[in-house]
């Protein structure tokens, strides 16, 4: 079953179109990775799902219903959570308060969920009273993901979760992404670290200049000559 689909999207800021006829799909239980060179429109594609920029053609479908150009506050309520690349935690709020804010739109008792999140991220449980701004980059990413998971979302959108992290933390974040996915949450993730990301991806899309270039399973793209030349060789 398809959880999220972008169908032939044109989108951009104001009149400047960045995405041209982009199509992406995330099926239930999948990790889908979007890679591509800088400026290819990877992050823009995520933002367009979240109503952060204007879609001029095509549509976004969440499960059965169309959510094209729905404002972010409502997209959250529909069960889509988005973790931006930077500025993704409230630095002056404690770890626990960040998680509570993640559950803001919930009106039921979210304490069991809080315990589950702490079980998933034991490091955070220890630091629950500390301001999120005092944590390391990797731990902040965990807070940001934990905060998004408080809603038990239908799908999680991650914008370059490993950007700016040391290799050690990068591996940890990819493991975490896999662990989150294992709890049944489909993930659509934009990544720069193409090789590692493809390693955990069920399927992947390569975007170039705001257009779909390649699509395939993780291993297929890892084996693809052109993809290898574009990202993997250069990256080392």
């Amino acid at each position, binding site marked *: 079953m398809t959880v999220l689909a972008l169908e032939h999207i044109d989108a951009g800021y104001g009149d400047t179109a960045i995405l041209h006829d982009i199509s992406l799909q995330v099926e239930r239980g999948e990790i889908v990775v979007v890679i591509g060179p800088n400026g290819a429109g990877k992050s823009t594609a995520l933002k367009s799902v979240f109503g952060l920029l204007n879609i001029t053609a095509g549509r976004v479908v969440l499960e059965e219903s169309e959510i094209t150009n729905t404002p972010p506050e409502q997209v959250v309520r529909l069960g889509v959570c988005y973790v931006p690349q930077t*500025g993704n935690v*409230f630095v002056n*709020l404690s770890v626990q308060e960040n998680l509570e804010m993640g559950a803001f739109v919930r009106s039921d008792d979210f304490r069991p969920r809080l315990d589950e999140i702490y079980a998933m991220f034991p490091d955070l449980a220890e630091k629950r009273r500390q301001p999120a701004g005092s944590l390391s980059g990797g731990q902040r990413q965990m807070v940001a993901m934990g*905060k998004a998971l408080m809603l038990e979302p239908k799908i999680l959108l991650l914008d370059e979760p490993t950007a700016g992290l040391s290799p050690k933390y990068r591996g940890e974040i990819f493991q975490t992404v896999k662990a989150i996915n294992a709890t049944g949450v489909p993930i659509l993730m934009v990544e720069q670290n193409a090789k590692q990301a493809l390693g955990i991806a069920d399927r992947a899309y390569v975007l170039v200049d705001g257009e779909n270039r390649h699509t395939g399973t993780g291993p297929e793209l890892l084996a693809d000559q052109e993809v290898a030349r574009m990202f993997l060789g250069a990256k080392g």
Partner: protein
Amino acid sequence: MWEFVNFYFIPGLVLGCIYALGALGISLTFGILRFANFAHGEIMMLGAYFTFTIMGLTGWHPLVAALPSMALAALLMLYLDRQFFRPFRDSPTIMLVIASFGLMLMIRSAVWVFYGTQSKPLLRGFQRPTQYLDGAIQFPDKHLWIFLTTIVIMLAIWYLLTRTKIGKAMRAVSDSPELAKLTGIPVETVIRATWIVAACSAVAAGVLLAIDSQLDSLMGFKMLLPMFASAILGGIGRPFGAVLGGLVIGVAEELSAYPWIGVEPLLNPAYKTGMAFAIMVVMLIWRPSGLFKGRVF
């Protein structure tokens, strides 16, 4: 020694409490709405006048009459936000500042129309100081009320900001409005809550100031400088920094008139408000983020 405590330190703390309550509202609105609200002092003044009217109608004690005044001021503030500030929500900050400046002049003029320009006492009669410790420490009961009221309001606001969902959301919006939106926090609701808290704390500050001195249509305006100085000293956008800033500035103003050298006041009491200004200038040069790392733009 006791003279120092009774005539300088305690009055300084009392003044500091009033500054603290006022600065708290300024800092809170600044943190969430990102502009310096020049009309804050007028809401203080207006709240004191509302209280005066309610006292005249009911004969209640000013601190009781202040409660319905808070409700009135909060409703008015929500209306004013809708009419004056919301249209400028996505405009450059300076437009909001100018709008608040205009609002300040309008509120003051309206008060002149309805109440006249004469100052009047809120509490009638002379209050004899109550003696403590065999008369060593003495201050009037109204100073005790001012302390206690300030403490109660501070605790209430602390509880709101750290223990309730809407209060935490206020801090979240102050932290990052963009992320708050992505998280699904209804920012307009948070803004309304902020105005309610700001209006209530402003009314409290205004009523306490009128209890301490008297009702005066310029009282809010005169408070603006020390309140902004307090907010900057504490780190703008840090409500509890503003409280500390208010106490420091209140005490510093009173102590500046103490005869530290010889028998003459160190600074002529007429110039004591200059202390707030001096502290603000020094902070802006030396540490614009304030004692608690507030925002710097």
